[in-house]
Each structure stands twice: as structure tokens, then as C-alpha cells.
């Protein structure tokens, strides 16, 4: 893969994007994002955080109420045609035509992007093969499983070899096996093919596994941004627990850790010595060496990294699951209200 030039260093560059819907609903309230070319960027947030609205604006589907954005170097409002040619988009709501076969779906998508003849046939065969759909390519999509449909969705987004791929909740509703397969595909696309991918998800684990950088979105705003490790490091740090053998002078051990500033927030609980460190794995060798020098042996060491859930809690003041539940309830209430008005 060629290295990105300075000009296109940011495949996605959004500044102060705002989307206000009719009726005053402010879905996105001023979001700025800068995604370097060739990386996977995760947008993590509960349902209703504004992730999909953001994707719709970046993919020209929805006009921003305020702010600007460029994708692959093109302005999403003034250069819609160029943006549309440069991007692939896999929407949250699957876009496959169930009345057609998998191959027909891909052929039509390719034609829409101007592919013809042998080139189109070759591309369609390649994609069916890569996503393990070779054998069901001639079957109607309505006979596909959820996982197969989702794979076809991603294949549709790749027909024209886009520079930037948008994946809006690509694994929502998939079983664990299908989800693992999808992760594998996404890794391959990003690492082997150098594609820039913007991935939205409400699975903490997914963002952690796949994204080099991520932004946590809540109620239409980016609450924090960075690599998953950086975000976790911003917390008090990793939890380091040492189990000491019986008869150990735990106070001496504590003094070693505190005096040499190897750990912070140090507590002793029976034979357990607990503390925090910005980078637990890096702190452990020094800690063990210092204890050994003081004649203290150690039975076991555990380093627990803070999860993205801890990060989420810190920045939004509520746990991810609580936010998710609140969003679902709000959506349900809105649905009921709509139903009454019928």
C-alpha cells in the first residue's frame, strides 16, 4: 500500500457538525472528527447517541444543519458526487434487495458505479468468494441468514473499491460466531488493504478490538477521544494486585511500593497488596525487583486494565448499560406516542 500523502492525511475531516431535525431534536450538537487515512476509527455510543446521524451526514444522505466535513478530500455538501464515488457505506438498516439473488445485488451495485463486463464479473466473483457467499450467490437473498445478509451488505459497500468505508453497527444482531467472522473481515480490510474505516458500534468490546482510535459519543457530542489504550490510561490507571505469601510483613511491602512511588492508591487487605499504576504491565518488573531487594517474595501478580466501560462511566457519568437502557426507553416512548397519534 502506498503511504498517504500529507494532503489526504485525514480521510475524514469533520468540523463542528450539527444536525437539528424538524421539531428541534438536536441529534448531533457540534462534532469534530479527524480520521487518518488507512485507519479504523470507532464511534462508540449507546443507541440514540447520534452515531447514525453523523454517518448519514458524512455519506451525503443527510444535509448538515451546521459545520463542515470532507471525506476523501471532498466536501460532503458541495462535492456530493465525488464523495459518493469515493465511499462505501454499510448502513445500520441492511440495504440488500431480498427479492434478488446475492449475485444480482452485487451486479446492480457494480453497474451503478460504472463497472461493466468482465471487470464486473471478476469483482463480483471475488467478493462472493471473500465473504464465503460463493455457494449461495445464485440464491435469493430472502433465504439468507442474518449473518449472510450482513456479509452481502459489506460486499455491496466494497464493489467499487472505495477509499473510505462506513460501517454503521455492522455486527448488531449477529450471533457471536458471525460477529467474530465479521471482525476478521474488518481487520483484513483495514490492515491488508489499507482501507479507511469508520465504524460505529455500541459494543465496547468491538471498538476495543478493532479501532485504532475512537470517539465516545453521548447525546450528540463527542465526550472523549483517543486510542482505546490512551482512553483507559486517562483513568487512574491499571489495577495491580499482589498476593503475598503468609507471614509476610505487609507493612514493609506497602512502604516499598509507596516510598518508591511504584504504585498509587495503595491498600492492604489481608495478604493482598493493591494499587494503581498508569501502565501496570510496565510497572510490575520494577515493583517485583524493589520488593525482592527488600527481601519480600510475591506469590502472584494480577494486572487488570480498565475497561472502556470505566472510561464511559467517567466521561458521561453513567454506565454504558444504563445509557443504553435509557435510550431504548426513550425510543419506545417516542414509538408509543407516534402510535397514539395515528
Amino acid at each position, binding site marked *: 500500500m502506498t503511504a498517504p500523502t500529507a494532503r489526504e492525511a485525514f480521510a475524514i475531516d469533520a468540523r463542528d457538525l450539527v444536525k437539528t*431535525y*424538524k421539531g428541534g431534536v438536536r441529534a448531533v450538537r457540534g462534532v469534530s472528527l479527524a480520521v487518518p487515512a488507512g485507519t479504523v476509527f470507532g464511534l462508540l455510543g449507546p443507541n440514540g447517541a447520534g452515531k447514525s446521524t453523523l454517518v*448519514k451526514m458524512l*455519506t*451525503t*444522505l*443527510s*444535509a448538515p444543519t451546521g459545520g463542515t466535513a470532507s471525506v476523501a478530500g471532498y466536501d460532503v455538501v458541495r462535492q456530493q*458526487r465525488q464523495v*459518493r*464515488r469515493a*465511499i462505501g*457505506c454499510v*448502513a445500520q*438498516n*441492511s*440495504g*440488500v*434487495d*431480498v*427479492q*434478488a439473488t446475492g449475485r*444480482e445485488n452485487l451486479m*446492480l*451495485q457494480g*453497474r*451503478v*458505479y*460504472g463497472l461493466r463486463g468482465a471487470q464486473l464479473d471478476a469483482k463480483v466473483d471475488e467478493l462472493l468468494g471473500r465473504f464465503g457467499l460463493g455457494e449461495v450467490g445464485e440464491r435469493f437473498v430472502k433465504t439468507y441468514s442474518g449473518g449472510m445478509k450482513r456479509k452481502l451488505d459489506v460486499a*455491496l459497500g466494497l464493489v467499487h473499491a472505495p477509499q473510505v468505508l462506513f460501517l454503521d453497527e455492522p455486527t448488531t444482531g449477529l450471533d457471536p460466531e458471525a460477529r467474530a467472522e465479521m471482525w476478521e473481515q474488518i481487520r483484513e480490510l483495514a490492515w491488508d488493504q489499507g482501507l479507511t474505516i469508520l465504524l460505529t458500534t455500541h459494543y465496547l468490546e468491538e471498538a476495543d478490538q478493532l479501532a485504532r482510535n475512537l470517539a465516545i459519543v453521548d447525546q450528540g457530542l463527542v465526550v472523549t477521544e483517543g486510542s482505546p489504550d490512551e482512553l483507559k490510561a486517562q483513568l487512574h490507571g491499571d489495577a495491580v494486585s499482589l498476593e503475598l505469601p503468609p507471614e509476610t510483613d505487609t507493612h514493609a511491602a506497602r512502604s516499598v511500593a509507596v516510598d518508591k512511588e511504584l504504585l498509587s492508591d495503595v491498600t492492604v487487605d489481608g495478604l493482598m497488596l493493591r494499587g494503581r499504576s498508569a501502565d501496570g504491565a510496565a510497572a510490575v518488573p520494577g515493583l517485583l525487583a524493589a520488593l525482592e531487594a527488600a527481601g519480600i517474595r510475591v506469590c502472584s501478580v494480577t494486572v487488570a486494565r480498565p475497561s472502556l466501560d470505566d472510561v464511559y462511566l467517567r466521561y458521561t457519568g453513567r454506565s454504558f448499560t444504563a445509557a443504553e437502557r435509557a435510550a431504548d426507553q426513550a425510543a419506545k416512548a417516542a414509538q408509543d406516542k407516534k402510535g397514539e397519534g395515528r
Partner: protein
Amino acid sequence: MSALSDTWYMTGRAFRAFLRQPMYVAFTLIQPMIWLLLFGQLFKSVTELPGFGASNYETYLVPSIVVMSGFFGAGWGGMAILDDLTRGVLDRFLVSPVSRSSLILGRLIVQVLSIVIQAVIILLFGAAVGASYHHLVIGVLVLMVATNLLATAIGALSYGLALLVRREESIIAASNFVLLPLQFMSTGFMALILMPHWMQEVTKYNPVNWTLVAGRGALGASPDWGPIFENIGYLAALMVVCAWMSTRAFRSYQRSM
């Protein structure tokens, strides 16, 4: 150029989807024949009423069944767009550089195709049960043009409605509420002169009646071309207005995103 090829490919997609619903195909082809037989038997004796004019009710009825089948089918057109919309297919195409008009045109072209096939079958079946046509070539041509102008107008409205309300129930309700009265308040089954006075007034503004005046007139023994082309003109104007409203609905859908 790409707008043309896009329309071609979208037409192909809609046509395949049409053929893949064998029940639907059978229904659109068989139902008109049932109507022709049913109404033909039911209203047979109206020709004996003084002032009805026509002596053969089948001849009178065939153009009406062609028109009715055409615009009833078009009224349900919004259902297919709604299906694309709820399944996310429409958004997938909107994110691509595909020509926007091809998304609607492809469907309208398939609608024209199905109406033409349907009309040919009705005309043949009608001839078999005793209807007679004069000025076959020009008559059939005018009937087809008029029916398709009306059906395209109704189809465009139905698409627009689907994009605005996004509910199957609303399309069903609107179709039932609008289509049947339009058919019955026309000269579809009954001669103008035998209708109550107020209804005669209504027919003047009823596009279904414009279509019948043109189509039935052109198939008749002595066509009066003035009113025929006048009514074709009304239908063309109506189609333009409905197409405009449909594009407005499309824009409104995009703005709502």
C-alpha cells in the same frame, strides 16, 4: 448518459421483481378478465335503457376495464417504494452516485410495460366475448397512451404518498378511498346521460373520465378527435403536476434524513 443506463438497470431490477411474484402476475392478468365477465353480466341490461347509446355492453365495458386495471395497479405502486424504504435499499442507492430519477423512472417503465400487456389481454378477451373495436391501431394506441398517462400520474402520487407517510396502512386506505369512487363516478359502467345531474358535473373533473372519453372515443365507430385530444391534454398536464408533487415528496424525504 449514466442517467439513461441507470434507468435501464433500475428498470431491469423492477422487472425481475415483478416477474418473481407469480401470484401477483397471475392476479394482474386474470382479475381484469373476471371483472369483464362479472360487470358484463351484472350490467348487461343497462344497454336497454333509453338513451344509453351503445347496444353492445362488452364493447362499452372493455375500455373501462383497461383503464380501471391500469390505474388501480398504479395506486398500489407506493407499496414497492415503501418496501425499498423500510429495507434500506433506497438509502443504499441514495448513498451511491446513481441518478435519482432512475429510482422512480425504472418503476414507472415497468408499470407501463405491465399495463400494456394487461391491456392487450383484456382487448383480446373482450373480442372473444363479443366486443368490437373500430380504428384498431389508432384506437388502441390512444387508449394505451391515455391509460398510461393516468396510471403514471396516480403512480407518482402513490410513490409520493409512500415517501411522505411511510405506512402501508395509509397507502391502502388512500387507495381504497380514492380509486373506487373515481371509477364509479365516471362513465366506466354507465352512460353520462343516465347519471344523476350532480354526478355528471363531477365526471367533468374526474381524470378517469378524461381517460375514458379519449380511449373509448378513439375505439368507437366515429371518433370525435377534438374532445379526445383535449382530454389527452388534460391527462398530460395532470401527469406533469403529479410528477412534480412526487419529486417534492422525494426532496422532503431526503430533508427528513
